[in-house]
């Protein structure tokens, strides 16, 4: 693909416009917004984790509007069935009163799917999203349906309310490109949130892009070159999360049960490219890898009992591994 400087500038401009529009509805959370956009432009799914009321749903909703994409929301509950997500065949009677099955698409047939409180649904329902997230297709009654492009799942989950929840299995977690932690707003941000949401001011959101443009942007950013040393660094970083490898530092050997899958490496490189473009560069730098390493790897590292009992988090280990890398 032949890209020009103009294309790159257009990408940056579009992202800035998206951010500006989103910020009309979202107070603070600058990094979160940027990371969600990076994840979307990389064509990945994001898992947003945070306590209730931090604006996770609002963010996803706003992004759907601003990006000019078809948006749907699925509130995950324990009684939610897979068919409620992907759709089902229903009998339709024609004029001659003969019946026939017709596929009724579920909410998953959108560009952006908000899987709200995904851990509240049963694993069966959760797994209904697996194929959609990875292959961007849905199979119902032996028929495979292609999902609209682009397709993203932005799921949210509450980390503290664990009763009656079904933690996502590792296989499903791995399908998420990023796991983003939604921080609590600062005092100033909180004040702004309260002011904005309790008054009569209604800001109109504008769609600054559309699905076609987004697909083109996604294609452009994939052209950003990654130098061999940078690629090696990313790969060694992933290898370092595996305690059995020679690249693993002592802390990884001691506290990690399982390391990141190859999807982790893919996630790092694909998102680092976008981050580089957003930083105005035509190449990926070590600092891009550092930036995306946390959201790309934190849900792919599984601590052992020792690590959990010592209160370590995946982010702590990632920090240590990055420090050990010396870059």
């Amino acid at each position, binding site marked *: 693909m*032949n*890209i*020009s*400087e103009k294309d*790159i500038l257009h990408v940056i401009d579009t992202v800035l416009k998206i951010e500006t529009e989103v910020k009309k509805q979202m107070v603070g959370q600058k990094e979160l917004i940027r990371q969600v956009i990076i994840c979307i432009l990389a064509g990945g799914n994001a898992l947003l984790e945070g306590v209730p009321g931090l604006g996770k749903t609002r963010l996803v909703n706003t992004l759907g509007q601003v990006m000019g994409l078809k948006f749907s929301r699925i509130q995950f509950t324990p009684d939610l069935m897979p068919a409620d997500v992907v759709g089902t065949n229903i009998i339709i009677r024609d004029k001659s009163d003969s019946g026939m099955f017709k596929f009724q698409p579920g909410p998953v047939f959108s560009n952006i799917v908000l899987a709200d409180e995904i851990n509240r649904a049963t694993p069966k329902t959760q797994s209904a999203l697996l194929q959609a997230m990875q292959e961007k297709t849905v199979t119902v009654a032996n028929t495979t349906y292609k999902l609209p492009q682009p397709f993203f799942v932005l799921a949210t989950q509450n980390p503290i309310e664990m009763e009656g929840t079904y933690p996502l299995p590792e296989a499903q977690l791995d399908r998420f490109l990023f796991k983003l932690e939604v921080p609590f707003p600062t005092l100033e941000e909180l004040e702004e949130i309260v002011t904005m949401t309790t008054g009569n001011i209604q800001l109109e959101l504008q769609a600054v892009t559309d699905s076609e443009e987004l697909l083109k942007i996604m294609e452009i950013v994939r*052209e*950003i*070159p*990654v*130098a*061999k*040393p*940078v690629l090696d660094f990313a790969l060694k970083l992933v290898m370092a999360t595996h305690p059995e490898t020679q690249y693993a530092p002592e802390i990884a050997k001691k506290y990690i049960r399982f390391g990141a899958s190859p999807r982790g490496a893919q996630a790092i490189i694909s998102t680092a490219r976008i981050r580089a473009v957003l930083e105005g*560069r*035509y*190449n*990926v*730098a*070590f*600092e891009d890898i550092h930036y995306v390493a946390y959201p790309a790897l934190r849900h792919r590292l599984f601590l052992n009992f020792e690590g959990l009992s010592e209160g370590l988090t995946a982010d702590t280990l990632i920090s240590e591994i990055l420090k050990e890398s010396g870059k």
Partner: protein
Amino acid sequence: MNIKDIIRMLRPLRNRMYFNTGLFCLFACLSVAGAVTTILAYVSLWIPVPYLVLNILYIYIAFTVASIFISILAAPGIKSLIETADSLGLKERLITAWLLKNDNSEIARLQRQDTFNAVSKTDFKSIYPIRFPTKLAIVLAVLLVITSVSFLIPSHARRAAGKMEKLQQVVNEQIKNLEKVNEELKNNKELSEAELKKILDETTRLVEELKKAKTEEDALKALSRTENELKKLDKKEQLNKIGNALMMNDMTRALGEAINNDSLTDMKQALEKLMQQLEQEEISNEELAEMLEQVAEQTGNEEVSEELKQLAEKLLSDSKESQTGALNNLDEILSGMMQSQESSGLGQAMGQLSQAMQQAKSNISRISSRLPASNQNSSNSSEQSTGSGTGQQTAQESSKGGSNVPQGGQAAGSDQAAGEGLGAGKSPDGGGGGAGEGSTNEDAGYTGREKPGSGRKVGEGYEEKYEMLYDPDHLGGYTDPSYVSGHKQEGGTSNFTEVDNIPVQKGAILSYREVLPRYSKEAASYIEKTDIPAAMKEIVREYFKALE
């Protein structure tokens, strides 16, 4: 826009990296040199290291040169340059551009352009300063101070090293002289091939030994050894020895005198007379054979010695003919030696070599005297021996024996003239050697005969022959004191010691090696018994130690 343009713009950074590397290498190497020289400086306080300052200088120069080579080899490569530039905030732009240098795609071109823009905006002078290796400089300064301090510490080894330096210089000079003489000898047509070979072998060996010599003693021993070896070639010397040995006995005195006078006719007459006496049984053949055996032992030449021993055996046979034949053979041997001495150019060669070696000995033995007083090994009494004039020494000696027997005397005294010297006492017929006040261990081997009261500079005695010494039968006995006259001048001091138990009984001329242990032992026991200054005792000990 290509990668070369970008790399060209990195030149200021490259120069700075180069300079920093060079500076670091230099200080690192100098610090290592500092550590090495510090160790060397302190080791030299215990172990003599000649040319220490020069060696230290060489070490610093060597490490400086090494640092230059290392710096050249450690010139920043393109990869290292790129990595450094990237680490300075260019965020992997350069490494990417370098890897995409052959890529002509639009994105690669854009990336290169972006890199070029970023590099051109970067001021490497401000973000990559010249880094002076302060820590290494401090280490170097500290090491230099520590090394310098070592020079303030007085050390015996340092003084010894000073001597070794001097010795080396002198030895080198003497080696050159010897080589010059060797060259001249090679052109000497009168020398036979065998003689020349022997001389060259010996001088080559001498040169090797001189090079290896660590002390003056080593050098002097090497010279003496060579001299002795060369003397074996010297027919005149051999004849002299034979003549001297024959002169010891009344029976063969005439023969000895004839040999010493180089008179072939007299020698033949003396032998004829001996034959007649033998025939008429005026002298016994056993006595003559015994005499010849003694002569054989003192010739110093194995070949001649063997022949003389065989003659002695023949003389012991009952047959008169065999006895006469033996004397005829002796006539042939002596005549042959006298004739070959006259015809050969060996004498001239020996003279040259002897002169060269004497000069070498003299120069080597003067080494200590050339050094500053503080460098001298002996704590002699030069301080009290100030002033000028000839020394007056008093020596006590006991004298016994006939007038034809060389007498030995020992004296202790101080030489006023030089403040250091050897006091020598002399009995009317003999020579005496002894360590006087201010003498040093360089007097080793000195047995030269001194004139009464004559002072001698340190080391002069090496020039004398010391192979043969008078050997008294025993030391001890009562003797009358003898006084060696001297002239005392103003400003000088002198002292004398009355020496008891001096060895003056009838003895024989023996190799000094045989005499030395007895002298040494007696001297050691004497100095312990006598009330003399400790420094003097040390001088005596050093004297004998050196002789050994």
